[in-house]
């Protein structure tokens, strides 16, 4: 949050620096008085026996009250400033928290992905947040403060990224064993690139090109993969785990836990418990050939 990259985080960063300098000033004054007494009033012979009420009333009531009223102004201003986006939103994204990954749905384009939220840079995006199980909290420090995802409720908010870039987000409400590995990334792209990404993601997968990929698709459809995962354009239509339709295009796997490479993905598929202990995907009983085929296929789904 010290390097804000969007209007919401900007305004909080400004607040922070104001609060920081007020705090420094107040602390320095009080601590200096204490230290002065502790260091220089030890040989003192004149103990003052007045009541000292005025000292406390001025320094401990009047001045703090003035500062606090100012701070309240900041707080109210901040609440009002964050309520609505500066311009109308073009894109709505529905995010659903799961233990321990993020489902990201683009209702207008009609597809879902996971743990990677692409947005057009420079325009506000509307977020609709819900949870599939326990309470999570959506937080992208460089872009926006956090907001919780609660059962039976939908929280709506907005954010925007000023410039193209990748911003890290993470679940901020303790949600169980793998709360630590529940990250996501916000990828802000120039509007044209974002549109291209949308078009590419909303298309179903095409038929596999190579023999090994065909074998991988067969494994995917016939094994337990298909009961939990969806790959649009194939028979895999499970909805417990992340949508894998264009999984090859993603940068990281398992909600940020590992990079999306052949080796890591193979390790994940064969036994994800060694990578992210306690996650809800069971180890897969696949032969080395099957494993190689299915990972090759998944990696090809750009």
């Amino acid at each position, binding site marked *: *949050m010290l390097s804000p990259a969007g209007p919401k985080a900007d305004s909080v960063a400004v607040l922070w620096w104001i609060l920081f300098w007020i705090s420094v000033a107040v602390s320095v004054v009080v601590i200096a008085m204490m230290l*002065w007494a502790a260091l220089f009033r030890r040989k003192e012979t004149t103990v003052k026996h007045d009541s000292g009420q005025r000292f406390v009333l001025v320094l401990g009531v009047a001045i703090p009250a003035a500062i606090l009223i100012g701070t309240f102004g900041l707080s109210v201003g901040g609440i009002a400033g964050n309520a609505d986006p500066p311009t109308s939103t073009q894109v709505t994204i529905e995010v659903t928290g799961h233990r321990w990954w993020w489902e990201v749905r683009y209702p207008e384009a009609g597809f879902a992905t996971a743990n990677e939220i692409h947005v057009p840079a420079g325009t506000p995006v509307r977020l609709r947040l819900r949870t599939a199980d326990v309470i999570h909290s959506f937080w992208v420090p460089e872009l926006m403060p956090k907001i919780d995802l609660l059962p039976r409720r939908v929280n709506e908010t907005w954010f925007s990224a000023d410039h193209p870039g990748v911003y890290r987000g993470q679940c901020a*409400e303790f949600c169980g064993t793998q709360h630590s590995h529940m990250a996501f990334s916000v990828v802000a792209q120039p509007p044209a690139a974002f549109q291209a990404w949308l078009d590419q993601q909303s298309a179903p997968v095409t038929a596999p090109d190579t023999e090994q990929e065909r074998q991988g698709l067969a494994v995917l459809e016939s094994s337990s993969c298909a009961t939990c995962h969806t790959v649009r354009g194939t028979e895999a239509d499970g909805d417990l785990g992340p949508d894998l339709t264009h999984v090859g295009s993603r940068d990281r796997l398992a909600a940020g836990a590992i990079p999306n490479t052949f080796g890591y993905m193979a390790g994940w598929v064969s036994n994800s418990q060694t990578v992210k202990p306690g996650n809800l995907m069971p180890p897969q009983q696949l032969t080395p050939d099957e494993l190689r085929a299915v990972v090759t296929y998944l990696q090809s789904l750009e």
Partner: protein
Amino acid sequence: MSASWVLPERRVAEAAVGEVLDEVWEEEPGLKGWVTTVNHKRIGRRYLVTAGLFFALSGIQALVMRTQLIGPEADVVSPEVYNQLFSLHGTTMIFFFATPMLFGFGNFFLPLMIGTRDMAFPRLNAFSYWVFLMSGAFMFASLPFGVAPNGGWFAYVPLTADFAPGLNIDFYTLGLLFLGVSTTVGAINFIVTALKMRAPGMTLSRVPLFVWGVVTTSFMVLFALPPLNVANLMLFMDRRFETKFFAPEHGGDVVLWQHLFWIFGHPDVYIIVLPALGIISSVIPTFSRRSIVAYPLVVLATVATGIISFGVWVHHMFAVGLANVSLTFFSAATLAITIPGGIQMLAWVGTMLRGRIVMTTAMLYSCGFIVAFMLGGVTGVMFAVVPFDQQITDSYFVVAHFHYVLFGGAVLPILAGLFYWWPKMTGRMTSPRWGIWSFVLVFVGFNLTFFPMHISGLLGMPRRIYTYEDGLGWNAWNLAATLGSYVLAVGLLLTVAIFAHSLFRGPRAPDDPWGANTLEWATGSPPKHYNFPVVPTVHSLDPMWDGKTLQTMETHRHDDERTMTEEHMALRTSELDGRFEAVMPMPSDTPVPFVVALAMLAGFTALLFSAYVVAYVATAMVALSVTWWLWHRPGVE
């Protein structure tokens, strides 16, 4: 030092009635006496030792966690164990260390400070200690079996309801309900003692600030614990009997838990801190050689804090997505509670600025406290600013903030209090030279541990994560915090060594080694069972300094109503102006409180393992033993 070895006034008083009182108040020796005692000083000492032990256990958990976070992707403990460690650390530090430790000081010193012979309900006092000990053992027993609470100290539903199989959360709900009994009756005991048993002449405007702190805290306990108990009862029933309080698909609501928890949770911060501030308000005047500045304002501030703290709980829920109008209200209330804090802070500094400072170990810790509490206070104000709170809540910045408030605002005062009152409790002095080392190591270690957490929080590190990736800029700050925690551990070990050394080798302490202002220093070091041979008449806020109060221990030494030599007795005085009302008979040693607590332990253990028949039997046992207890009222036999 102005103090002579034994205060001359006490010498005269002891000469008159000490021998008779010794006999009347003598306790049963050996194991039997150990179980049956109702003496507030023994119980207070036990509270301090037991809470200190829980602090050590909980601190070791923290060291394991810090070691796990020393660098990215470390593998010291598994995620499941880490989650249990932080949950148990928070729960036990708050419930089983901080509050009981301060209750220990209250038990030992509140009756001494107000000039009486015991707490209002000595048997209830023994009971509340046994329940505290047993509920603590109950809670800690979960860890070795790998079923410690694992939902964080605020145990949000539904994570702790449908998504947490196993006994972990049952240990949490039952352990806290069990402990709640102890805390509630302890609070009632403090309030009644302070209201009805102050020495004659101790009007409300002469009550020591530590007593005000303990009493305000006790009132808060009475109104803050019920919401927690109700929440835990509901959660236990949701888990065991499939009630639907927190089940969203059956009309229940998960945010209800958060409201109930934080209506308790925020006042609880002040429940912990107010007695600790009271310790500071005892230490600073003594070592500034003058009365506290602006006493009426400090009293007002203490009470105001207690009241306002019930109106700020929603600032823990700013990220839930509540209506803006409620955010605005709770933002204002949270800012308002800063004012009483400011009053107290300036009263301490003002007292120092107007006095002559005597630098002892207790005073060093008090100065360290002022620095730490100042920093914890200003970061607290930041959380009142709603958008900032939403950005930084549940990050390491929060962890830093509340450790400045709770370690800085409670543990440092507790250490100040231990060094201050150690001679009174044990009759031995501690080494001032080693005291400096204790302070330096603890203070440096504390800051090195917790200051970097502000920065890692600002850099986006959420709390309650068992590990983190490389390359996020968090490594250096976490390394520093971990090293700091080791320094802190060394400092605390050294402190324990100082006390141990003093206990066996320390020089003997006189009655009033510091030239202090309040009545506990008018007793022996350590005090006799009966505290005061002759109950004095209090003439001012600083009875040791006014030159009249001590005199009354001599002048009243032939007055039956002040010496009460026939059996266990204490004075009852009026609530507001401390006027004499009656001489009350007080109970003596009894094993019944221990038996009741034991039966309750059996009951709660039975509930844990769903052995409901055993639970019924235990309930009947409790009812029977309580009947026995009420039957044997003092003064009836």
